[in-house]
């Protein structure tokens, strides 16, 4: 039973890490900055799940309000004050 749980934890960690790689790549490559903020929110959720599986509930309790709640709010405020599209 313990071995099954170990394999399951490793599979879960791999899935979340690969999804966070995809989300980070799309967040960097995207030209529309609002969609980049949304992708970075996906990546933050995946990192919160990684912290959860790594048995750190105190970090999850701080990381979710900071990184899913506050940083997209600040970034959307900055985008509203400046420009929406990157490049020309």
């Amino acid at each position, binding site marked *: 039973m*313990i*071995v099954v*749980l*170990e*394999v399951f934890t*490793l*599979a879960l*960690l*791999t899935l979340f*890490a*690969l999804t*966070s*790689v995809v989300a*980070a*790549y799309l*967040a*960097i490559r995207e030209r529309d*900055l609002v969609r*980049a*903020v949304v992708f*970075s929110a996906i*990546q*933050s959720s995946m*990192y919160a799940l*990684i*912290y959860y599986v*790594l*048995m*750190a*509930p*105190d*970090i999850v309790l*701080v*990381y979710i309000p*900071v*990184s899913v709640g*506050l*940083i997209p709010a*600040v*970034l959307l*405020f*900055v*985008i509203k*004050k*400046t*420009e929406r599209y*990157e*490049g020309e």
Partner: protein
Amino acid sequence: MTNIAVLTAYVIVLSLYVNLGIALYGIFARPSLVKKLIAITILSDTANAFAVLVGYRWPRNALPKPPVIPELPVTRRVLEEYTSSAVDPLPQALVLTAIVIGLAITLFIAFIIIQYYRLYGTVDVRKVRRI
């Protein structure tokens, strides 16, 4: 079986390194300042994930526990069980501080970007160099 577990752990660490590389590319090569700010947040989160991953360990024939002692009369047996099966709490405490300071730095850079836009009228780095 052990080989597959080691290979999977390598895949996890390698994907975190790929994330680090993507964030560095975003900081150095993308023109917009807001995109650089997003890349900085991804970079600091990846560094924190490395620090937590160092403190993680799987005990023999037991499940890993979060670093909390839930039972009130702390006897010798409870402490032995805790030290043999809980993960390391020190990197978690360090990362907790790093996340909050990262939030403060993100707010500071955001307001610097707003002042920059008021001065130059753009957030594109190449156009500012041309001026």
